[in-house]
């Protein structure tokens, strides 16, 4: 499950396993018909987050298998989105920053009615509970986003690579 290096790896994951990117989403006839209601689905959420940059490698979260479509759950009718992400190593010091980047990307992209839950895939990080609690605390997320240095780092993760 975990795309990790050797167990003795230091904090930074020097040689991550790289995964193949998924293809473009095929557009169905129903989606082309503007008359029909078009609910937001898992794939659309995945498309929003898969090209977020990893903070320390010139790779996307999809290429590092940090995000996967099967770990995205959206319920458009209930306005809920849940994303599990998998740090590349169990002691990844970037886990909170990665989770925050996913959260900010979704906050900026989705209608405001959506409730966003961003969690670490169970069992894949040593400080899973602490990171999840931090990401779920909207007051601390709001304060973090008023910190211009941190916001700049998040924006770098979210910027499209040329």
């Amino acid at each position: 499950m975990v795309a990790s290096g050797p167990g003795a790896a230091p904090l930074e994951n020097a040689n991550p396993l790289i995964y193949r990117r998924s293809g473009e989403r095929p557009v169905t006839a129903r989606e082309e018909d503007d008359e029909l209601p078009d609910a937001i689905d898992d794939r659309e959420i995945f498309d929003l987050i898969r090209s977020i940059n990893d903070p320390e490698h010139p790779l996307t979260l999809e290429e590092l298998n940090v995000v996967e479509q099967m770990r995205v759950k959206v319920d458009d009718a209930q306005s809920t989105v849940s994303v599990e992400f998998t740090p590349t190593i169990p002691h990844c010091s970037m886990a909170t920053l990665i989770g925050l980047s996913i959260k900010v990307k979704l906050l900026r992209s989705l209608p405001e009615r959506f409730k966003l839950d961003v969690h670490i895939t169970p069992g894949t990080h040593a400080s899973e509970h602490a990171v999840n609690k931090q990401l779920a605390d909207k007051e601390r997320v709001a304060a973090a986003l008023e910190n211009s240095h941190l916001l700049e780092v998040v924006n770098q993760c979210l910027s499209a690579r040329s």
Partner: protein
Amino acid sequence: MPEALSLLCRVSAHPESRCWALAWSPSGALLASCGGDRAVRVWGREGSGWACRAVLADGHQRTVRRVAWSPCGQFLASASFDGTTCVWRRHEHGFEVVATLEGHENEVKSVAWAPSGSLLATCSRDKSVWVWEVDEEEQEFECVSVLSAHSQDVKHVVWHPSQELLASASYDDTVRLYREDEDDWVCCATLEGHTSTVWAVAWERSGQRLVSCSDDRTLRVWQRSEGHGGGSEHSWQCVCTLSGYHGRSIYDVAWCHLTGAVATACGDDAVRVFEEVSPVSPGSPVTFGLAAHVPRAHAQDANGVAWHPREPGLLASCGDDGDIAFWQYQRPEGL
């Protein structure tokens, strides 16, 4: 049960932002709101609605998280993510900053005045609670104690309705109580039971009980029992846990001192009201029942609830949608 809580009026209070909290002035003539737009707004009645009387925009550099009126109604304190607390004095034409309280290492999350008006408490993400002495004539504030009982971010502080007893709620999942002991302030009780962040606490009018709300989606009612030995020590026990009613984190709770009703603001957008159910026999367990539930009270998370101090059943709520909603609550029959 929608008829139990009926909408009177809705105002866009902090547009393009979120409204974090509300506070009624002691007379109930004014309502203060604060939000992510760094402003405090003061609202007064106009006809059947509410109008903005003042915008306090130049006090803070970042989000204003909470506001509190002094018991005399002449001062308003605002706690901000910029690490400071501003004290504003009300005069004929508006409000002016008379003091900026500095010292916390980072975001100030809450502020509260003691019932005497001579003490102020602030709390912060730096894990501390500060008690300030107020010299009203000189308009000076001196820090008299820094309390470091919590191990994490402190979310809320609120004073006992008549005594100099302070309660604080924290990200460390506990509520703590403090009192003065021989010229120093000490933590005199730790209330453990919540399994996640405690966002807010509210005292019952008597001061014998308090209610806390949490990220664990429960409310807990705590009761004071006089200690043995006749000293001033007392212990607190959780006498009731309300679980299963809230869909997400509960951000605020308000215990009405006129009617005894308990209102909550929840991350599932709803505002709810609970009433204590009369005990079947003396000594039977304390129970509360759901008396009102408005599922879409706000278009986004509900953040704050505040009962009017003079008009029974008048409730204000606010949310991430930037709105303030005013509600009239009527206790349902047969509850």
